[in-house]
């Protein structure tokens, strides 16, 4: 059973998934951040692979990507950093990133290296359904990686069902139509999440975009299995030294879980 399935079998509500950018705030911060998140109670980690043109990301994650690239982060370096990470990190880890750097690395080689390192799944927002089904999905399956599609409030019901059937691990529900997301209309978000919930999808649902604190996390968790926090956490890491990471991550998780 995959690490992600195992997690949801054990715990199916209030799953806290935290996003962090590889190579940020320092080039060698990646493992320190992941360890700090796990030790302070994150259930899952979404590890961002920095890209020069991250279309779906808002300012904070864009800035962290640019900083990571300036630090010298590459996919080669990332897999070096991840070589032994499973000795210390037991929570599920999914990689999030854009297609172009992966194509240059070699898509199959990327999947092979991710699987060997102990990565559990992939979120690739600019890999669409048609290309997934015809070209890339079979490679992802071959290496037994979970693949997580995104759905949004604009995604038609039929399509939600299709994307759910193609996903494994969980389904990523984007809370509102936005890059960074915000909770300006959380009532609408609740209606949308309720609709998703009542579709009885095969995958657990994690809500992302605009989840930034205890209130938004708990609100999202009412009608989903958990939520993903990205920008709000990344913001706290900006400019921090490696020695401060543990304290920063612990403080942040505490404000969500207390």
């Amino acid at each position, binding site marked *: 059973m995959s690490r992600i399935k195992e997690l949801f079998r054990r715990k199916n509500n209030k799953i806290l998934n935290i996003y962090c950018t590889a190579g940020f705030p320092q080039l060698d911060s990646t493992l320190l951040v992941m360890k700090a998140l796990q030790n302070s109670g994150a259930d899952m980690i979404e590890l961002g692979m920095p*890209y*020069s*043109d991250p*279309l*779906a990301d*808002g*300012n904070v994650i*864009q800035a962290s990507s*640019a900083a990571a*690239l300036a630090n010298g982060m*590459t*996919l*080669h370096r990332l897999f070096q950093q991840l070589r032994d990470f499973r000795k210390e990190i037991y929570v599920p880890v999914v990689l999030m990133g*854009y*297609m*172009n*750097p*992966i*194509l*240059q*690395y070699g898509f199959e080689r990327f999947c092979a290296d991710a699987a060997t390192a102990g990565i559990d799944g992939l979120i690739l*927002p*600019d*890999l*669409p359904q*048609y*290309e997934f089904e015809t070209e890339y999905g079979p490679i992802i399956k071959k290496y037994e990686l979970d693949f997580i*599609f*995104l*759905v*949004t409030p*604009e*995604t*038609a019901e039929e*399509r939600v069902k299709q*994307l759910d059937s193609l996903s494994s691990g969980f389904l990523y529900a*984007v809370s509102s*139509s*936005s*890059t960074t997301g915000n909770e300006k209309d959380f009532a609408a978000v609740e209606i949308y999440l309720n609709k998703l919930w009542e579709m009885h999808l095969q995958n657990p649902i994690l809500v992302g975009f605009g989840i930034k604190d205890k209130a938004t996390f708990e609100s999202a968790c009412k009608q989903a299995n958990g939520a993903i926090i990205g920008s709000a956490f990344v913001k706290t890491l900006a400019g921090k030294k490696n020695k401060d990471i543990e304290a920063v991550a612990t403080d942040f998780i505490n404000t969500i879980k207390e």
Partner: protein
Amino acid sequence: MISALSSHNQYRGTYQQPNIFGYYGKFGGAFIPEMLHRNVEELKENYINIMAESSFQEEYQQLLRDYVGRPTPLFLAERLNLNHTGAHKINNAIGQVLLAQRLGKKRIIAETGAGQHGVATATVCALKGIECIVYMGVKDIERQAPNVARMKMLGATVIPAASGSQTLKDATNEAIRDWINNPNDTHYVIGSVVGPHPYPDMVARFQSVISEEMRWQLKEKTGSELPTHVVACVGGGSNAAGAFYHFLDDPRVRLIAVEAAGHGIDSGMSAATTQLGKPGILHGSKSLVMQTEDGQVTEPHSISAGLDYPGIGPLHAHLFDSGRGTFLSATDNEALEAAFELSKLEGIIPALESSHALAALKQLKLSSKDTVVLCLSGRGDKDLATYMKAMKK
């Protein structure tokens, strides 16, 4: 999945038309996040039908004729520099804004590099009374001040794109992010034959009026049914797509695309994507992309802001890959020389972009039997500062 009843071309595509998934050969597609799916799908489902409606065609053709000033004359070259707003960009801007109105959209966004597409879009929005927001790289705002002023005077809001390299690529990213954040009332008018399917095909169709006019004008003026060569500059490639369009599937016509070599192909300061790029994904389609070994998109260089783009439309990537198109390049200096030469010899001051196409003429081995049509995509008013600097040297 593939029905035996569907026509072969639906899945294979031609040079002129991508297959139903938006592929020209290996290039194209729609690599977009789910947040854009509904909007892009809506466009894909409707663009061909709306463009075929007689009321649409009537309004589009009437505006091209009475507002833009088409047909533009064929005088040694197809003179799009005489179009209203100074370049071919308005053909596409009118088409897309009319289409957006029919889709019920109330807000138009666009990206711009040199400012030509931004001005064209702002112009059409002023004419139609629609809100217009143009994203423009911070660096381009500095070097294209007159076009920024034009857009503002036309009532558009110009938003500086401060992310990444602060040029066209980043203005495009910002426009896409705007569209993600405004999924209901907004249409994104992409200015070139780039972006996710159906944009490359839709923009090529709107620009195809260039080669349509070329064909009958050539017949009228020279008696030739076809040119032997069509020459056009390529950044993203919209004027070239329009100039090539009706000749794409006719191998008797040689298609010559001219890229910006900047300081020279190997100088590290170039925008010649077919020479320097590798297959990759940028702005929603698979094409040739200038990038590092690690797949990070690099910043190109050209003296002409309109060619300063690290990608190329998937149609052109396919023309290059298949050998159907001949890809040449001209340096900054060669383009400048050609601009001064045309000005002195013919009394036409060309845009720096078009000057690249002019400069490449010297590289072609032509005989007196050849009929060459060059697409003079824009006029040089916007480049006067650069020309003035060159004159001082």
